[in-house]
C-alpha cells in the first residue's frame, strides 16, 4: 500500500512543504517537534483540509488534487488528540455510529471490544470516561468504521504514564490484528521507539528523513530533534531464556545475547529493547572484574564530536545490530578511538528501558 502526499500550504510561522510517499505498512510514526505541521498532514490525508497546494493519492486513486474526494468517502479512520467522542451518545452508541456507516471490511465488533478492553464501558456515558478510556473507545470506534488506514494524532499526549503504557502495545498491534496500517503522529521519542516500524522525521514544515525505526534513531538529525539526553538505539530480539534464580531474562539479538532484568514473557517473544547512548560505556579491551553484564564486541562505524560540548556520539556495529554511545572527547583521545577501531560496548542490565517493551507484562 502506498500513500503519496504533496502539500504546499502557508502556515503561521513557516511553509508546509511535503512531497512524500508513505509506504504505509505497520505503524509509521510522523515524528517532530510540536507545531511543525504533523497534524496538518493527517488532516490533508483525511480530507479535512482543502487547499490548492494539496494532492493525495492512495494506491493510484486520487483523493485530492483536482477532484476532491470528501472525507466520508475515503474510509480513513482518525483518532483525534481529544478523542472527539459524541457526547450525546453513550459508548455503545458511539461504536454503533461507526458500524452503521461502515461498508465492507471484516473487522468484528467483539474482536475490537475485547482487544481494546472496553467491554465494561459499553453502557457508560462518554463524560464518565477517563482519558485513557476515551482514547480506547475512540480507537475502537475508528476501527469499526472499517478503515483502510488509521491516522492517529498524538492520542496519548494528555495521558499519564500508566495509561500510556496500557495503550501503546495496542497501537503497535493494530496493523497485525486488524490489517489496518497506522500513521501515528507524535513528538515523544519513547512512543516512536515503542510503536513505530518506520519513521518520517519532520522539522518546520518538511519531512527531512524517513526510514525504518532502528536506522532512523541512529541518524544524527534525530538528536537535534530529540535532545541528546534521549538519543539511543533500538535492538530487536527474542526472549531466549529465563534465569529465575537470578531474576534475569536473556534476549537474543541476531545471535548476540543480552541480559536484562526478568521479564514475564514466554521464550520466543519478540522484543524491542531501547538502549540510550548515555547508558553505554566503551572499552578497548574486554574488562575483567566488572559488574556490567553485557559486554559486546563491535566496530566503530561513526564517530561524531559534538561542537561546544564535552561529548562525542559513537555508533558501534555489533554485527546484527547497532548501538549508540555517548562518551567524552577526552575518552576518545585517551583511548585512541576512531572510525573502524574495535571496541567493547558495555551496557548495564538495568539500563534497558523496560517501559519500551510492547506486548510484555511487567513485574
Amino acid at each position: 500500500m502506498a500513500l503519496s502526499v504533496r502539500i504546499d500550504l502557508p502556515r503561521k510561522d513557516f511553509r508546509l512543504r511535503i512531497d512524500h510517499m508513505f509506504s504505509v505498512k505497520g505503524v509509521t510514526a510522523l515524528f517532530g517537534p510540536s507545531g511543525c505541521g504533523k497534524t496538518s498532514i493527517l488532516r490533508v490525508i483525511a480530507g479535512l483540509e482543502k487547499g490548492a497546494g494539496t494532492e493525495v493519492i492512495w494506491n493510484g486513486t486520487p483523493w485530492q488534487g483536482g477532484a476532491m474526494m470528501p472525507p466520508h468517502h475515503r474510509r480513513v479512520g482518525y483518532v483525534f488528540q481529544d478523542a472527539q467522542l459524541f457526547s450525546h451518545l453513550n459508548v455503545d452508541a458511539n461504536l454503533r455510529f461507526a458500524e452503521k456507516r461502515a461498508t465492507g471490511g471484516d473487522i468484528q465488533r467483539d474482536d475490537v471490544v475485547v482487544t481494546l478492553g472496553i467491554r465494561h464501558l459499553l453502557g457508560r456515558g462518554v463524560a464518565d470516561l477517563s482519558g485513557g478510556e476515551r482514547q480506547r473507545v475512540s480507537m475502537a470506534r475508528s476501527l469499526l468504521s472499517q478503515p483502510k488506514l488509521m491516522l492517529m494524532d498524538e492520542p496519548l499526549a494528555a495521558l499519564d504514564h500508566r495509561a500510556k503504557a496500557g495503550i501503546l502495545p495496542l497501537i503497535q498491534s493494530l496493523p497485525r490484528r486488524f490489517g489496518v496500517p497506522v500513521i501515528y503522529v507524535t513528538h515523544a521519542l519513547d512512543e516512536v521507539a515503542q510503536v513505530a516500524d518506520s519513521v518520517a522525521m519532520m522539522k518546520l514544515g518538511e519531512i527531512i528523513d524517513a526510514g525504518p525505526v532502528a536506522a532512523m534513531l541512529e541518524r544524527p538529525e534525530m538528536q537535534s530533534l530529540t535532545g541528546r539526553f534521549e538519543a539511543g538505539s533500538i535492538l530487536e530480539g527474542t526472549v531466549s531464556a529465563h534465569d529465575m534464580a537470578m531474576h534475569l531474562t536473556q534476549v537474543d539479538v541476531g545471535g548476540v545475547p543480552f541480559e536484562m532484568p526478568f521479564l514475564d514473557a514466554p521464550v520466543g517473544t519478540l522484543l524491542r529493547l531501547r538502549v540510550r547512548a548515555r547508558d553505554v560505556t566503551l572499552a578497548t579491551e574486554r574488562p575483567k572484574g566488572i559488574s556490567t553484564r553485557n559486554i559486546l564486541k563491535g566496530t566503530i562505524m561513526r564517530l561524531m564530536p559534538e561542537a561546544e560540548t564535552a561529548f562525542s556520539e559513537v555508533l558501534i556495529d555489533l554485527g546484527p545490530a547497532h548501538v549508540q554511545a555517548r562518551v567524552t572527547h577526552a575518552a576518545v583521545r585517551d583511548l585512541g578511538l576512531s572510525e573502524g577501531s574495535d571496541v567493547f560496548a558495555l551496557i548495564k542490565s538495568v539500563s534497558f528501558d523496560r517501559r519500551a517493551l510492547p506486548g510484555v507484562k511487567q513485574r
Partner: protein
Amino acid sequence: MNADLAPLWLSLRLALVTTLALLVLGTPLAWWLAMTKSRVKPFLEAVTALPLVLPPTVLGFYLLIVLSPNSAVGGLFLSVTGQSLTFSFTGLVVASVVYSLPFMVQPLQSAFEGVGRGPLEAAATLGASPIDRFFSVASPLALRGYITGFVLSFTHTLGEFGVILMVGGNIPGRTKVISIAIYENVETLDYAQAHWLSAVLLGFSFAVLLLVFTVNRRIPVKVI
C-alpha cells in the same frame, strides 16, 4: 366570567405556526452563520438582529408596505393565491417570522458554534455525509439551542403587538390576537376582560419559561 378566549387561541396558533416556520428557515441561516468565514457574515448578522432594536412600528410600517397588494411581493401573492397578505392571518405569520427571527437564529447559531468542527469532522471520518452529520451529530448536540430558540420565538410571538397592529389590524378571528384584544379592552374601559386576558398571558409565558429553565438545568441533553 364569560371571557372571549378566541384571541388567545388565535395568538397560540400564530405563535406555533410562526415558530415552526422559523425552525425551517432559521436553522439553515443559523448554521451558515455559525460555519461561514465569509465577509458577508457581519452584514447578515446585523440584518438578523435588526428586529431586536427597531421599534415594532417601524418594522410594521415597512412590512405593511412590502406586503400590501400594491407592492411587488404582496401583489404577486395576491395574484397567485387570490389572498391579500395585509390584514390576513398569513400576513401575520410572515410579519411574525421577521419579527421573531433573531430569537430563533441567535440561540441556534451559538449552539452550533458551541458544537464546533471537531465532532463533525470525527463524524465525517466515520463515513457520515454532510446531511447525516447535521442530523445525527450537530442537531442533537445543539438541542438546547433548539429548545431555547423554540421557546423564545414562541413566547415572543405570543406577546407581539405593534407589528400586528400595523400589518393585521384588528379583525376578530383573523388578526385580533390576545395583545390587540387587551389593548381594545383597555381602550373601551373593559378592565375585567383586560385583567383576565393579561393574567392568562402572564401566567402562560411564565410557566413556559420556568419549565424550560428547569428542564435545561436538570437534564443534561442526551439522546441515545
